[in-house]
């Protein structure tokens, strides 16, 4: 400690699906000096508690459970001999990429990284963030916390359950709690549509006869020590509860699946510019943040629905970081902004660096409402280069569109625009 500072080519913060895929890709791109720092006692991140299936359809063309999907990547990391430090929490990343971490085995350590890949994932929005009125008893859990209690600890958080929010983890937990002997009364969703994947609504609610109450929210929580009941009311277009629609649900547990937030406290401290929309770093096509040599991928960048796309994105970040270390910082070029408009809430990347666009660019985005029979259009300046019809677009499903490298090179646009069009 003190004066000694370790030097590593690439330091990856987080050993979940994003960090693992980034590590493998960086290694395959030729960078052998890669170090993964993981705060948990094993690699795999949140996948370890996602024991349901449905992972890996795109990547491995088979249906895996979360731990199985993670194990595939852990096996690659093992095989490649990529170093990892477990039980290691990163405390600080400086603008010149000095990473400070703490662990029970090594105490405080400092590492000078050639490149840093942010792969810290996300956290769940808690009850307090919604300011739901009522008491604050035991028995209110975010869905992911309940998932850990059930799937890792073997403990049943409660027996009579109401779920607020129809995010994917909430839907998955509706089914899991039912399997484990609890009774799930309903899932209330304040929006007029679900925030989760269609397949999860079918497989986790419909198949078990659990009602999904759209445009409903919890307006009161009773119980001083343990939850005794919640009151659910319908909401109007402005999401205000409609008087007279209240219904009381006696229960002992309230699970919340009301949104995921990229966990960017370290990024902010490092001076990384964050997006007000995604709450993740603003990145270019190399997934490089506003701090040179600091890359981001996975749920810390923007919240994904499918781990397969996390892996794809993270691999791209791993390759970019390896290239950065090999080649060093690029000369400044004219940045090309990507404008997300007309139903498109954001894109990742948010801009193109403008220097040697030699690869196709995958733009990932979400829409801000439910849209039927719309075209996803991409404009390079005023010229429309992509125009693909989609039967339905919903906020719960991430979309993507690819811009060809030759088109970008040929037209050298000042602005790229992504929007939804009716025709």
């Amino acid at each position, binding site marked *: 400690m003190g004066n000694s500072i370790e030097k590593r080519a690439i330091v990856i913060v987080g050993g979940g699906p994003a960090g693992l895929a980034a590590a493998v890709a960086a290694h395959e791109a030729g960078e052998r000096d890669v170090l993964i720092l993981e705060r948990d006692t094993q690699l795999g991140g949140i996948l370890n508690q996602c024991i349901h299936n449905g992972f890996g359809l795109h990547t491995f063309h088979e249906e895996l459970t979360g731990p199985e999907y993670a194990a595939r990547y852990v096996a690659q990391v093992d095989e490649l001999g990529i170093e990892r430090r477990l*039980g290691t929490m990163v405390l600080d990343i400086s603008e010149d990429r000095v990473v400070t971490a703490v662990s*029970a085995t090594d105490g405080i350590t400092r590492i000078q990284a050639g490149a840093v890949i942010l792969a810290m994932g996300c956290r769940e929005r808690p009850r307090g963030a919604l300011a739901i009125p009522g008491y*604050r008893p035991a028995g209110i859990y975010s869905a992911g916390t309940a998932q850990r209690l059930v799937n890792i600890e073997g403990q*049943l958080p409660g027996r009579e359950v109401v779920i607020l929010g129809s995010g994917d983890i909430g839907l998955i937990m509706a089914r899991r709690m039912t399997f484990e002997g609890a009774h799930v009364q309903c899932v209330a969703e304040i929006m007029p549509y679900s925030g989760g994947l269609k397949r999860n609504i079918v497989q986790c609610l419909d198949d078990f006869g659990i009602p999904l109450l759209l445009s409903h929210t919890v307006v009161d929580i009773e119980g001083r020590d343990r939850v005794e009941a919640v009151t659910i009311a319908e909401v109007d277009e402005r999401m205000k509860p409609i008087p007279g629609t209240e219904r009381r649900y006696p229960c002992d547990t309230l699970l919340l699946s009301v949104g995921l937030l990229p966990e960017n406290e370290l990024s902010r401290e490092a001076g990384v510019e964050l997006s007000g929309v995604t709450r993740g770093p603003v990145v270019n096509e190399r997934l490089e943040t506003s701090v040179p040599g600091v890359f981001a991928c996975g749920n810390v960048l923007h919240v994904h629905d499918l781990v397969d796309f996390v892996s794809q994105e993270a691999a791209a970040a791993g390759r970019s970081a390896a290239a950065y270390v090999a080649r060093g910082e690029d000369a400044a070029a004219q940045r090309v902004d990507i404008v997300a408009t007309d139903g498109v809430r954001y894109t990742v990347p948010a801009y193109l660096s403008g220097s040697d666009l030699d690869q196709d660019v995958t733009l990932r985005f979400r829409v801000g409402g439910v849209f039927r029979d719309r075209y996803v259009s991409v404009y390079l300046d005023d010229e429309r280069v992509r125009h693909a019809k989609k039967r339905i677009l919903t906020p719960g499903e991430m979309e993507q569109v690819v811009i060809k490298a030759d088109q970008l090179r040929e037209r050298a646009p000042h602005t790229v625009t992504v929007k939804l069009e009716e025709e």
Partner: protein
Amino acid sequence: MDLYDVIVIGAGVSGCAVARELARRDARVLVVERADDVCCGTSKANSAIVHAGFDAQPGSLMAKLNVEGNRLMYEWAQELNFGVIPVGSLVVCVSEDTRDGLTALLERGRANGVPDLRIIERDELVQMEPNIADEAVAALWAPTGGIVDCFGLTIALAENAVANGVEFAFNQQVVDVRRDGDAWLVVTPQATLRTRAVVNAAGVYADDIHNLVAQPDDALRIVARKGEYYLLDTTAGAHVRHTVFMLPSAMGKGVLVSPTVHGNLIVGPTALDVDDKEATNTTPDGLAQVASKCSLTVKDVPLREVITTFAGLRAHQDAHDFRIGEVAGAPHFYDCAAIESPGLTSAPAIGVMVAGLVADGLGLADKPAGAFDPTRPGYANLNIIDFDAWGRLCEQDPAYGNIICRCCRVSEAQIVDTIHRNPGARSLDAVKRRTGATMGRCQGGFCTPKIMEILERELGMDAREITKRGPGSELVLGLNKDAVADPSAKEGGEA
């Protein structure tokens, strides 16, 4: 039956302060508390402000104990190692029409003996507080105002009391107090305790306890006055630099906006008298009031950064002064009642005063010199120490390197420490109050299962016995599939 010298009813900040000051005397002291820990009522849910002392009526007990408590608070923080920050407070005048009120407040503060008060004009105010509302014209500046860790203060007092021989009994609600010869009997469902003196520090229930022994014409009535609050993330903690109060105007009383010792921003409270003394629920109306009122003094309060809301109940009495002293016709029964704002600030002075009354009444002698240790070690705070110091802690105990609460930087070592102190943490919230774990932006989402595991391991408990805040607040209700009928049993058993 054992005979105590003093039984203190209630382990809030007042009861713990009295106990700690009684520990200076040669006496057998017991604190009886209905909850599973100290600091479970009004003491845990309030603004956590160190008031300068300009508010109370000159000559009142409140005025005297506030100013004295303010001074002692900063002194005691040194020996007891709890968090207090003298950020100073501003009472903001938002209309020229009410400027007289500001002057009156200045005069009142000076009459109360508050040091260094002065009125500052808008230019200086904006310098000090860039996010002050555009309407603000002037403010009363009180540099001795501050913010305090209300949990940390109460716990420090309790730990120091125990270290000096005071006993605590938790999960025991006093149901009766009656005279027995020269002594008092304090009755709980679990025990009947005998004592020479009683201190009634029962918070919102101090009237019930008082009325058990008082003469009919001396009945006390305490009203629970609810205050609702927003607590914002540390990302919003620097939105104001001082505690900002509003000078009451035609617009109403306003709410305070203040940083907290944990680095958050607190906004509130409302004030509504409620019948139910357990009604610590927040309400749509209350929260809406706080949200609209905060903008009267401070611009752009980032309420989207809210991480939790809560409500506390103040022990209000109509006379609006502390009720401290021996109850008429009840020898050696001392009220320490109606301790509403600025009760937290006043707590050290209340402790000194009540312990003095009891000691004089019973003729308690001071312990011999050196027998009372006024110091108490604090908990490590990994948010404020530098990395080198943290590294040295890890060398002493590697568990300082195992982060359990990532949002508030609490390690396994601190949590284990809370469990093995006395009074030690027995529940999730008890760990929270001592370390800050679960108080951050994820509100315990990640660390709750981990803290439960540590409690299980250190206390030899089953997960199903671990509570949020004592019996009835169990965190898990069973094990997976324990309610699902065993299919093999079904075959033989049911037709």
